[in-house]
């Protein structure tokens, strides 16, 4: 366990050394620009715009961070041959992958925490508007979306080049946000009697991630029911953790069989 934490901490420190936290500075600038410019253009709807823009920017930056840091994680270690030293020092491949994954997730977690705090500060203090529970819930659920995206990035990084891994991770993010349509499509086909295709699509929906369940950006300004709070607090995060765990297991299995030569 200590070895996993050591690798995780090292991954986090490396990300900090690579100046990934500069992304927060960009975030602040974007948010300030939105606040100052749109307040004058939005005809009284600046509160709503700042919340949506803030959460969307956190979402995009989180995705970029997970993708571009994640896809290099394993690949760089192998390119620089540092993996030999690590494995030779008694760290198993499983510990290496889990440590790398946790390190990257820690980096994203700290990023989201800082960006989220800044957003809440801006909404509550500067704009003096209501900070709703859904705003916190949106940030909370977003972490679980990142948990899955990070797992995809590490999985692809374990057997592919960074560019291809980044493209594949990004594809998974797109598919994840559209996968609920497969379910709807499957239902319609089932009603029309195409059971075979309907079952195939249903199976695909089960296998692909559903990232829309983590997306509360569209609900933070609407006073509508965001579904059962219990689902948002427990069920959806559980789904995220399990999906990431499955991906991580596949990564470990792939990496165990990989020849480093």
């Amino acid at each position, binding site marked *: 366990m200590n070895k996993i934490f050591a690798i995780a901490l090292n991954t986090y420190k490396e990300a900090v050394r690579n100046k990934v936290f500069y992304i927060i500075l960009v975030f602040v600038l974007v948010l300030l620009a939105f606040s100052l410019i749109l307040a004058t253009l939005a005809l009284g709807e600046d509160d709503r715009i700042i919340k949506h823009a803030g959460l969307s920017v956190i979402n995009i930056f989180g995705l970029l961070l997970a993708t571009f840091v994640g896809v290099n994680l394993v690949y760089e270690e192998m390119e620089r041959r540092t993996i030999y030293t690590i494995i030779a020092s008694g760290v198993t491949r499983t510990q290496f992958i889990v440590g790398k994954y946790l390190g990257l997730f820690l980096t994203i977690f700290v990023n989201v925490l800082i960006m989220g705090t800044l957003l809440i500060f801006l909404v509550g203090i500067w704009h003096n508007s209501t900070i709703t529970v859904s705003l916190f819930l949106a940030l909370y659920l977003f972490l679980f979306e990142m948990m899955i995206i990070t797992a995809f990035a590490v999985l692809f990084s374990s057997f592919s080049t960074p560019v291809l891994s980044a493209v594949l991770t990004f594809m998974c993010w797109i598919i994840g946000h559209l996968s609920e349509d497969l379910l709807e499509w499957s239902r319609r086909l089932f009603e029309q009697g195409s059971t075979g295709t309907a079952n195939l699509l249903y199976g695909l929906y089960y296998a692909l991630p559903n990232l829309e369940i983590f997306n509360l950006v*569209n609900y933070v*300004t609407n006073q509508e029911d965001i579904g059962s709070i219990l689902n948002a607090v427990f069920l959806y995060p559980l789904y995220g953790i399990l999906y990431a765990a499955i991906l991580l297991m596949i990564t470990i299995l792939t990496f165990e069989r990989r020849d480093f030569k």
Partner: protein
Amino acid sequence: MRKTTLICIGILIVSCLLFSWAQGKIIEARSGIRIEEKILMLSDRPEVTKVAALGFDSALADLLWVRAIQYFGGNFSTLDKPEKREGLINLFDNMLALDPHFVAAYKFTGFVVNESVKDSNLAIDYLLKGADNNPGEWSLPFDAGFIAFYQLKEYELAKELFIQSIFGLSLTHDASIQTTGLKPGFSEEAIIDGDSYSNAEFTCENSSLTIDLGAKKTIGRIWFEHKAPAKQTYRLSLSTADTPTDFEDIETTAVLGVYFHDFEPPTEARFVRLDQFQTEADEDVFAVSEVKVFGARNPKTPGYVERMAYEMDRAGGPVPRRLGTIRAVLQ
């Protein structure tokens, strides 16, 4: 200085000069094209835009909102021209599909389509679509009602919309109706079809009219209306129940034209029954033109909306006089 450096600086200066010249030419060539219209080249199928938004629906709706305001500001006097109208309507459709709960956007769309695009019916459609998606927002049906009153002079429609802004949509829209004593040639549908000018006539003896709301619902108001053939006072009895046999009497009352009963606090029931019909002239004809059952009163709706709804009953008067009355009501 090294030779390579000098060459680089030379190329840089020449490139900058050429770039500046090219940029000037581009600005000149594109001077006739309004950049702002490029944003209107959205998909004409809002459902496609929604899919393409990849979860950033509300954020994209916000961008379109800012763009719509700027576009309106720059073109407000020419938006009734087909080429301007098409792009703007497309922009509105996309914006509202992306965020169906964006109340300010519905109000703005209603205002622009009515005032600048000059299509009052379409403006009412947008506002009512907003009311459907945001049932608690009294101002959307109110704005639609005001357009119906002021622009279209459709006072009956305006009254309906003002009432909708107080109580929401009538629960009778998806209710079934059972009657006894309905005279031949008259239909039950006439009672709940929303047209208060078509009557259904009953015999007074042993007649009743029962509305089944389909499930137990919150009832804030029961509305009964009669407009033809002769104005006279009716008497009827009103009762509600959870089962079709277990009616609890609310009141027996006299009616002249319009009658309504408000429940304070709102009551819960599935069935509403009107019976024990009597007419002032002791005739055996009891005419009902409309019965509506409404949900609980929206506490946010201002009191003047109800008074405006009743003003709409004075249909047919010239608009300036009616507007004067409305102004008096608003004061």
